[in-house]
Structure formats: C-alpha cells, structure tokens
C-alpha cells in the first residue's frame, strides 16, 4: 500500500487530512443521534409518567419487565416468554427477508453490472423509481395485489391453476414479502456498487483454466461482491427487525414485531421507560453483532 493512498493534499499531514474527512460526519452523528439516545438510555432507568413521558425516579423495572411479569391474579413475579417470542419472530422475519433479498439481488446486481454504461444507470433508476412512492402507500398497494380478490389470485383462478384464492395476505408470508419489498434496493445497490468495477478478464482466465461456471461464480464473482454483500445485509437486516408497517398492514396486525412493540410503548401504552429499555437491548444486540462482523472483516483483510 502506498504511503499516501488517498491524501488530498501533500502539504497536509495524512493523519490530519483523515481526521478532517472523518470528523464532520462523526460529529453530526454524535451530537444529533448519540446524545439524544443518551437521553433515552437515562429514560430507560426512570419511571413512566402517567400520560407519556417520564418521572425522575430511578427504577430498573423496565429491564426486569422484559423477562418477568406480575401475574394477572396473584401478583407473583414469574418468567414470561412474551417479549422473547416477539424478538425471536422479528429476528426470524428479518433473517428470511435478508436471505431472500440476497438471492434476488446477487443475480440482479450481476446482470446490471454486465450492461452497457448507459443501461447500467437506467437499471439503477429503474430499481429506485418505485421508491418515490411513500412506503405506506406501497405497502397498501402490495396488500391489494396479494389479497383474495387481487390480481395475482384472480389471474391464477382465471388460468385454472387454482380454484380457491391462495392465502397470500394477512400472514407471515405476506410480512416477509413486504419486508423484501420495503428494502430490496438496499441490497441491490450496494452489491452493484461493489461489483461494478469487476474485471471480467478474471472470469475468462478462470474458464481458460477449465473452471466450471459454478466454481467461477463462487470463487471469483462472489468474493468481489463481498463488501457489498455485508453492506447490503446490514441495510436490509437491521431496518427489517424494527419494521412495523409490514406486520401491521400485510400481516393484518395479528402478530407484533419489535418495531410495533416499541412503538406502542411510546404511544397507546404510554410507557416510555419500557420502550427505551427494549430499544437499548435491541441496540446492544445489534452492536455486538456489528462489532463481531467488523473484527472478522478486519482479520480477513490482514490475512489477505
């Protein structure tokens, strides 16, 4: 590696230049995001005020509430799986959405990257144009498409493939589809962005060495996509966990995900400390996973 790979000016020491590049974004996040979340961290140890907000009395109740509840009748403290079930469901749904997004996006990103320069940009816009429509409206439109009397079921019935409408809406399947629909470009674009610079001579060389297509794809194409794959997975997985519109609208509101649960605490349930505590736990889990990923990536880079 060169001593001054990306320094902007030879007169400014690289360390200082780097700080100048890095700190504006760090500062704005630390000030307008981390500091407010610090307030929320404090709130998670306080008591809920009667009608929203907090009272300044210390309490760890918000954290014990996540695993333990007072019995409806005899007021005894007992373990409750309610919130764990909701967290597990959220992680499961988000994982499915991420994997399916990957399966759709890798070929799509590859296909786009092999187009001409003009076609590439047209494809990029083509992928993002639907997202000029608000997420809520898009989700409702997807529901109408999937519904019992929607075009998908009508077409299948007209073709004689089915006689009864398929249960495509108001269930877990619809939630998964909704999450994919919400976040697909967040996978396609980073993958494309990482892969676009791919040198296709590498592929030709592999074939010259009699590599099969499968081997060529997994050994040559995928590793180049890897940074985009990590970026895309983060951009799909993390927002999916906290998603609330897909379960509300496509799932028919019959099951909660953690986004709904936390939202309710700040709204109808008026229990800000509990909502804050739930989000602190979620934040901690995400942070641990992210750090683990970052460490692994760094180790791999050193190996290379």
């Amino acid at each position, binding site marked *: 590696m060169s001593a001054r790979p990306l320094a902007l000016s030879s007169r400014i020491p690289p360390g200082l230049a780097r700080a100048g590049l890095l700190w504006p974004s760090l500062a704005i996040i630390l000030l307008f995001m981390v500091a407010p979340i610090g307030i929320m961290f404090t709130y998670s140890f306080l008591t*809920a005020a*009667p*009608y*929203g*907000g907090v009272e300044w009395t210390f309490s760890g109740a918000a954290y014990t509430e996540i695993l333990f*509840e007072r019995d*409806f*009748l005899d007021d005894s403290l007992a373990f409750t799986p*309610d*919130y764990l*079930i*909701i967290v597990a469901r959220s992680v499961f749904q988000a994982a499915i959405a991420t994997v399916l997004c990957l399966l759709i996006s890798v070929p799509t990103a590859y296909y786009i990257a092999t187009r001409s320069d003009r076609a590439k940009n047209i494809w990029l816009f083509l992928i993002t144009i639907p997202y000029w429509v608000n997420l809520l409206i898009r989700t*409702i439109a997807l529901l*109408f498409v999937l*519904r*019992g*009397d929607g075009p998908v079921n009508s077409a299948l019935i007209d073709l004689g493939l089915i006689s009864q409408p398929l249960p495509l809406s*108001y269930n877990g399947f619809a939630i998964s589809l909704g999450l994919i629909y919400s976040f697909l470009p967040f996978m396609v674009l980073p993958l494309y962005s990482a892969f676009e610079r791919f040198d296709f001579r590498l592929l030709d060389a592999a074939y010259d060495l009699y590599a099969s297509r499968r081997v060529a794809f997994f050994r040559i194409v995928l590793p180049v996509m890897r940074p985009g794959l990590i970026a895309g997975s983060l951009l799909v997985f993390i927002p999916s966990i906290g998603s609330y519109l897909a379960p*509300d*609208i496509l799932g*028919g*509101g*019959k*099951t*909660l995900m953690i986004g*709904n*649960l936390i939202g*309710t*605490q*700040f*709204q*109808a*349930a*008026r*229990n800000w400390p509990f909502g804050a505590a739930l989000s602190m736990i979620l934040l901690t889990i995400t942070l641990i996973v992210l750090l683990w990923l970052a460490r692994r990536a760094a180790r791999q880079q050193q190996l290379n």
Partner: protein
Amino acid sequence: MKSLTVFTAALLASVLAGPAFAAGDLFIYTWGEYTPPEMVAKFEKTYDVKVHIDTYDSMETMLAKLKSGAGGYDIIVPGHDTMTILVRENLLEPINAANMPNYKNVDEKWRDVFWDKGRVYSAPWAWGSTGFVVDRAVVKGNDTSLKILFEPDDTVKGKINMLRDVNDVINMALRYLGKPRCNENPEDLKAVLDLLSSQKPFVKSYNSETKELLVSGEAAVSMSWNGYAMRARDEKPTLEYIYPKEGYTGWMDNVAVPKGAPDLENAKLWVNFVMAPENAAMITNYARYSNGIKGSEAFVEKALAAAPELNPPSDVAAPEFLSACTPATTKLYDRVWTKLLR
C-alpha cells in the same frame, strides 16, 4: 458543492417559509382532510388571516409534542379523552369559549361536558361513535349483538376485522362481557384476554382502515367508526352500521388552544368561527361526522342529515363517552394486547 448548499438553503427558506401577506397567521395542528378548504378560505377572507394546516396521525404524536414543550401551534383538535389529559397537565389556554358570541349555537348536551366543564378550554368540532358494520348479504336478520363479532357463526369466520386500537377493542370486549370499561380488575381483563384469544383465529386483520376491507368483501363484519361506515355503505348498500345493544363508545373532537399559542387572538377568532351553524355544517359535509352546533342541520346535505350512521335510532342507548383510563388500566390493557398479539 458549497454554493449548491447555499442555493438549496435559500430555496428552502423562500419556498418553505411561505409568503405572509395576510394581517396574521393561524397555525392549525389537526387530523388530515378534517378541515374543509372552503371553511379555511372563508376564514382567511373574513379576517385577513393566513391559515396553515399541519396534520398528525395520532393523538400520541400531538401529545408528545405538546408535553415536550415544542409549541408554535394556535389551534389543536384533541379528542375528548385527550382533553382530560391536556387539562390535567395544564397544557391548554383558558379561552372561555362559553363567553364567545357564537356559543349560543352550541347544543346543550355538548356544553357542560366532563372533559371541559362549562367549556373553558374548547368548543365542539365533530363527534361520532365506534360500533360495527355487517354485510347484511352475509349476516342475515337484524341481530345487533356483539356476539356476531366475538362468537362468530361459520358464515363470517375468517371475515372479521377489528380496529387496531387497544382501547376500542378491549372496551368493546368488556361491554360484551358486561363488565365496566376502563377496568382495573385483573380477573375481568383475564376474561377479556380469553375472549379475544378465542376470537383471534377467526379474525382476518386488526386494521383501522375498514372501508376497503368491507367494500371488497374481504371482511363481512368489522368494527368501525360511523363516518367510515357511511362511506363504505355509499359504495356497497348491503352494509349496515350497527349500534350494538350491549352499548358502544362515543367520541368528540374539540377545538382548543395550546398554552403559548403565538397568536391567541386569531385562535379565538377561529374557535368562535367554528361555532357558527353554516361553518359547522361545512365540517359535517366535508368530514362526514356530526357537529355539535344547533341550526347547522339547515346547511347539511340532505343525504347526510338523514343518514342512519349519524342518527342513532330512538330505541338505542346514547353512546358512552369514556375518560382517559388510569395508568394502571393502560398497563393492564397493554399486557392483554401484547399477549394477544405476541
């Protein structure tokens, strides 16, 4: 890049601030599509005041903003249960609506209401009820019991929609069980949870946008607000809004002025303006909910004035207006809701 940013900032400032040619401004914070444009135009013309409308999606958003101390609005339109909270937390300006010239038009039954005794803080805007709608092509007969919803026949199983509102759903279940609303008794709420859990397999969705579900036939029975029910019936005549014989919830939205309103005088002008019969009628014609103003009937569209959704039959009990439940109740309700939907 910098010049671009400066340019955009200038553009933002010019477009977003909006011209303030009028003698004054009035900032209204309310539900969307709730304020008739012709009413706004009339007010602007009469008083030379520019009206700006911002919308919220829930009472909680509005409440969170007011409680945090973020101000800047002259008029808000809280529901009656939220009114009790706003008054208790001292977040409203005492405007003495009762002393305003147009107060004489306010129907007696909306004058000494429990959420604003003697109308110190607010004037009526619109009111309605939460009952349920059935498709009479599917559910025959004239039964008006909540049993249709909670212990459904085979014909409607899987075709039931409930509002996604913890309070409305649980209060309705409590009525079906014959228990008091805003209930703090754990045993009653345990019974509610059992009832709702046994009903859940037959529920298609918990959704507050009920009109499309009913009209498309996806749902044959649905909890609904009366205004929604009327719009659904316009598109599908077999739908009927039911006033359950076990009782039902009523609500009233009120025009109030938050503490620290920038222009108290304009705000008072609006409150008085809203209480004039021809103006109140505009609200009903536009939002399709009843207002609380005497003499407005003369200006209300004929079809609306006669609509069964806005005129409960004489043998039906009056709607029950509930106060905001206590924190203990809210907590129990939330646990029932979480357990139901976990």
